[in-house]
């Protein structure tokens, strides 16, 4: 057990006992430095959480949270939102036939129209969403099934997509662009909105399809191979995703700038939703003037080109019209939460006040029990 320490092993600075008997002047004291850090005497703030010290914090939290909560609640309540389910599960719903007779390869588009009435007019810009329920865009394998390099316009990735895209990587030996399950399952219903005048005539509402994707997505993350010049040529030698009816460079026949990977509907779809019930921005109905509401109250018809099947997973399809505020869409939860938490804090503050009066004074002359 007598480990000899003589072979100069000064491990970690603590050398075992035997000091050298070398020169007399060479004796260097091992005395530790008397510094605040080494002696653990650094000046410190030592808060003690007692009722007395934290009382103000509770009241302050309460006083801050309740107004925030009220603000949020009011804001949320001012947001107008309208939702219509057009899945067509019920026999008497207009899209029932379309829903039933679905197959991905239908050549004839099935159309149906849903009528609805807006009770209140929608002011300012109105955002039109499509909503899907029970669609697990966040499934692990699904989320992975894409090739970001390809979408970023990488030529080599265009012709040789990532393995992650399997089994939607190639179609009969030809690389698919855009590859992967996400792109393959692109939402392809077309929604048109008509306002029914009091005299019964249908006025198509102008739906803006630009500006629905993130600016960074449109301009940085998604790029067409070889820029935007002649994208048909750029996509030569690639196949369209198996579920698609038209190739990626023909997604928007009306606007050549909105084709290929930078098609905004496509970009929006590619940003996979976090939760199984989600909505995605479809169109924006821009404010016409300050005097007339964007969408006056009244009757509307939603015309759907019904392409997208959801019955295989018990899904629902919805069209949502919503105005938005600084806090986004309508969601009263946060406001209520703030108000509740604020109130609880306030209440706790009061309880602590009582406790403080009962106990804290005693603490100052307290003794430590054995």
């Amino acid at each position: 057990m007598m480990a000899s320490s003589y072979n100069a092993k000064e491990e970690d600075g603590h050398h075992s006992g035997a000091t050298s008997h070398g020169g007399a002047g060479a004796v260097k004291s091992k005395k530790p430095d008397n510094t605040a850090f080494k002696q653990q005497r650094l000046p410190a703030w030592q808060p003690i959480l007692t009722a007395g010290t934290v009382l103000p914090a509770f009241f302050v939290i309460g006083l801050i949270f309740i107004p925030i909560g009220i603000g949020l609640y009011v804001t949320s309540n001012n947001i107008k939102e309208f939702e219509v389910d057009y899945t067509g599960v019920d026999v008497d719903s207009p899209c029932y036939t379309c829903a039933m007779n679905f197959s991905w390869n239908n050549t004839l588009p099935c159309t149906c129209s849903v009528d609805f009435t807006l009770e209140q007019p929608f002011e300012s810009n109105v955002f039109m969403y499509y909503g899907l329920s029970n669609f697990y865009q966040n499934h692990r394998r699904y989320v992975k099934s894409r090739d970001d390099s390809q979408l970023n316009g990488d030529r080599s990735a265009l012709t040789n997509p990532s393995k992650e895209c399997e089994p939607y990587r190639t179609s009969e030996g030809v690389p698919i662009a855009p590859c992967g399950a996400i792109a393959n399952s692109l939402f392809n219903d077309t929604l048109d909105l008509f306002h029914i005048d009091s005299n019964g005539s249908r006025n198509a509402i102008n739906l803006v399809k630009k500006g629905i994707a993130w600016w960074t997505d449109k301009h940085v993350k998604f790029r067409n191979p070889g820029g935007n010049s002649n994208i048909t040529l750029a996509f030569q030698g690639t196949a369209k995703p198996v579920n698609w009816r038209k190739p990626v460079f023909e997604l928007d026949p009306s606007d050549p700038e909105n084709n290929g990977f930078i098609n905004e509907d496509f970009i929006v779809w590619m940003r996979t939703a976090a939760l199984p019930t989600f909505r995605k921005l479809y169109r924006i109905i821009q404010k016409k003037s300050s005097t007339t509401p964007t969408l006056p109250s009244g009757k509307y018809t939603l015309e759907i080109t019904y392409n997208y099947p959801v019955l295989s997973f018990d899904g629902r399809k919805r069209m949502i019209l919503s105005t938005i505020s600084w806090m986004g869409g309508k969601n009263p939860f946060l406001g209520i939460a703030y108000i509740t938490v604020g109130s609880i804090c306030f209440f706790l503050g009061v309880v602590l006040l009582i406790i403080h009066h009962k106990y804290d004074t005693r603490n100052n002359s307290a003794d430590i029990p054995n």
Partner: protein
Amino acid sequence: MTWRSPLALMRDALRGQRAREKDLRNLVSNLPYEGLEKAKQPNRYFPSNAIKTTKYTLLLFIPMNLFEQFHRLANIYFVGLAILNFIPVVNAFQPEVALIPICVILSLTALKDAWEDFRRYQSDRKLNNTPCLIYSRKEKQFVERRWKDVRVGDFVKVVCNEIVPADLLLLDTSDLKGVCLIETANLDGETNLKQRTVVSGLSNPEFEPESFNSVVVCERPNNNLNHFKCYVEKPDKERAGAGIESLLLRGCTVRNTDHAVGFVVYAGHETKSMLNNNESRYKRSKLERKLNIDVIFCVILLFAMCLVGALGHFLWLQALPGVPPYLVADSSGHLDGPSLSGFYMFFTMIILLQILIPISLYVSIELVKIGQIFFITNDIDLFDEETDSRMQCKSLNITEDLGQIEYIFSDKTGTLTENKMVFRRCSVMGTEYPHKENAIRLAVLDEPESEEEVIFNQRPQSLQTGWSLDAEDTAPRDTTQRRGSRRRSKVAGIAQSDVAFSSPLETEVIPDKKLLQQISRAESSSGSRKTDPYLDFFLALAICNTVVVSMATAQRRRVSVSPRSYHTTNLLERLSSLVKNVGSSCLSSCKRKPKRNRTFSENSVVEEDHFRPSVKMETTKDTYGLQTCSLHAASQSNKPAATSGDLRYEAESPDEAALVYAAKAYGFILLARTPDSVTVRLPSGEDLVFEVLDTLTFDSNRKRMSVLVRHPITKEYVLFTKGADYAIMELLGTPYAEHFSGSKKNIAADTQHHLDCYAKEGLRTLCVTKKVVSAKVYESWLVDRQRALAAIDNREELIMDTAVQMETNLTLLGATGIEDRLQENVPDTIMALREAGIQVWVLTGDKPETAVNIGYACRLLEEEDLVINMSCNNKLTCTSILDCTLEEVRRYSADPRNVDTTPDISLVIDGRTLAMALSPDLQERFVDLAKRCRSVLCCRVTPLQKSRVVKVVRERLKVMTLAIGDGANDVNMIQAADIGIGISGQEGMQAVMASDFAISRFRHLKKLLLVHGHWCYTRLANMIIYFFYKNVAYVNLLFWYQFFCGFSGTAMIDYWLMIFFNLFFTSAPPIMFGIMDKDVSAEVLLGVPELYRTGQGAGEYKCSTFWVSILDAFYQSLVCFFIPYLAYQDSDIDLFTFGTPLNTISLFTILLHLSIEIKAWTVVHWVIMLGSVALYFIVTLAYSAICVTCNPPSNPYWILQSQMADPMFYLICLISTVVALLPRYTFHVMRNSIAPSPLVQARHLDQLDPSEREQWIKEWRSFRGGGQVKRSRLSTPPSPSLETHADIFPESPTASDIIGDDFTLNVISENYQGPVHT
């Protein structure tokens, strides 16, 4: 190199193997073979002297280090996960990223190992290249070579102050008698010089390496530093035996010898010192054991969660009516069925939730412990200026155990006491000589304040009188710096000498006048025969030891004092007047204790010097102090100063030195010691040279040592034996005295009385005897002896047998009492430890009386304590005592009058009884009794018993034990305890080597346990709990998300950010918390030792604490997940945008959770906490700005930026953090306000300003102290049966044996006053 067939090579290798494995080795000189190729070298099979302590080589570092690291289960777990991730069906992330954590951890550890190994390599290289002298036949002389060139069979010359390069068989020295002195401080820390002699029987007066043609036969290398068996076979087949006394061990330093030549028997890794070089031990702390259980809980939790995931996935798949577009088939278009997918999902979940097993915790704990050790070793209060030594931590991983100690087992000598032996009194031929003057001198020194003054005052004078100190150390200093300068001068002195008796205070003895007269009378009357018992007594003191004499002027630098006794006579007069003054004012302890008085038969004893420390000495102090250093024996003033004054005595045990110094004081000066002679100068100035025939060395079985000499005048064979009284008394033959003095005194009985008296004073006693051996007896004995010495098997036993044979029929000369003073602050420390709820046991080899006395002196026993004294001779009585004592104690504590008080019961037990009590059938009862006692004193215990006691208590009571000791006899105990603490003191370094922590004074234990122990424990416990919490809280976010992604194993947080989260953003704060948090300041912890109790038992790291924090983690993760979930429900939020606020919220929650736990915020805390937050934002922002397509499945690009532009992000973060932390915060506040724990109260105390705090602690102490006094008055022992026994105590064990009572059960309940206050 000639080519050799592989067969020959193999044969050679086999032969080499056999040669190394053989029990006996035949070694021959290398010289005849010098210059020949290796294959012809006779000693080629033995390793060379080059050493390699490195673990790795440059090439093999990576594979070997990896192999080493994979011994850790945690690392294998990690690698397993990484491999799992490479299996496509189960992987959760990209396979490559899963390798990152394990790679980081492995490479960090590898870097650390590489650095350590490099340092080892450097020191090896330095050592291997140290020059040394090897004989070369070519050059016919010793030539300079390197250590690594030394081979077995070489002749190596070592000159003075050089380190021995290999194990050498000593063949020649510069000393005429063939003696070589070595210092083994490097090996065992013992600083006294040891004597080695050349192999006897090689009768060449002129040693010539070239003519050495004998064969050295030695045993196989072993690691026993104290044994070596070997013989040298000369060409004529004559054998000369040699043992350890002829072996120079590698690493020793040659001292006081010009040069020595040795034959290399073992080299390199086969040397004894290298074989002793073992790795630092790995102990697992209690906390770590508990932690491992909790890790297993985590594993169970993980499996449960994975099972939930797998089952969920299965059910989810089954509920699907068709094949939805989001189910991705494999490349062949095939989709797994729900059950198979569920099965795969289980593994995916393990990968996903792997952080639940806190692998990084182990790394963090290691880092924290390094930090904690850094602070402990750097504590200036644990630094001992006298020995210039810091506290040392030898075991790096049990710091937190220091905060949980419940039982302390302490050695007495050297641990509680200084182990600086001071001769106090002696009894010769049944007459007691109290040495009053000497006692007064020591009493003055004992006063702590005056000590300083005295020593300081002496300093300037001592400069003139010849302290050989460096001028710089003794330069006059300002009076304000007195203390410091004294210390420094002392430090300097000791750093150079490392010897026990550097200060004259311990070495000087003022002779007793009566005894001096007696001696001079004896000397004159006995004439030239010199066989007067008084003379014999002192001769025995001077001869019967193993003290080595060295000169102060030798090369070895030592502090020495020239004995220029100036005002000697003057001084003695002053002293005697002092005695008169003091004598009137001091009280005899015997008088105060009438009960004990009965055993004292002689007035001389009763009158003796039980000085109270409060004796006023101020008036005389200054003048007295001036003399202290020059105090010297009066009888010596006429001696030539140069010879006797320069003598330094180097003793293995301080007792021996004390006795030699005592003999010196009476004029019996030990002048020289060689293996076969001792020179002693008599008071008359005559030098006697005794021929030493044999030395029967001390061993712990015999408890005595003897020296057999031939008297130069009478030519008689005389055996002087000294040893423990009980070991000697039974060997006494016919009394010496009767034929000479006429008085019919029974010397043995009288001496025994004196011995008992000494023991009660707390002195260490030794008996000194003499035996005249007739030539016939000696010769017959010598035959046996030589046979024993030559034996290779059972050598030790045979030698001991012969020793026992000789040591019979001894004649008692007298006895000595040596004082071993208590160390500074020992009573205070013991008090504090007891207030801290620690039971202190003292295990000592001393007699019960001595031990009890020391027990009172160091406040281990209190005056109002109920002391149970157990001592019995047979097991039956032992059982019955144990039973009835236990019954009494139980009744005592069950008595309603004592309900509110804990009875202060102390147990004194002797070794024999202890052995019985520890037998398996009584163990339980004994432990039960001991548990109820506040302190236990075990006397006369052997080292083995010490460790048994520790083991029994540790295993039976399941408590944390600490053993502290300083000597080799404590090694067993130190190793048996949970924590072993060694005191680097006078008795070498064995204890320190075996210990986990090494301190230099007992009082350091107080701060070490109460402050550092508490801190380390609370820090680490809180850190570990926090770590579990942190991992669970974070991982659960992912788990909750599984409910919303079809249990598909999706992570909504970018994997890089997840890794960074654990690796960078939240790793530094808990480590800093574990190293630097300070719940209560050191002052308050020391002032209120009760706070230590918070760590005992389960302490802060309870099972409940663990589960509460896990539950809290679940709650917090629920909040962190569901508030954002509800806020973002049915919106167009995308996967990673949803994950970002979650990540941010958990960062804030986790860090703020920690800040609720942090008790003291220093600059470091602020920097690290704020730095972590800043790092998170900087790294994440940079990552989201740069990474467009770099991490395929996730697209972090611009996500945090867009989130930070959204007010909702902040609002969600704010409310989630508040809601997550509200319960814990409120709970802390409520608990601290309504039912504050002692620690919280202590923190309140901490906030008072220092003077107020001091005042408070004082008041509180006095209040509590008052309570105790009151309590003891109230509670008189309830049982009459106990009181009847109380009277038995004062009788000595021998007396009770005579009465026929074969056991004593003594209970002293009140008014027992400890006589010695030091």
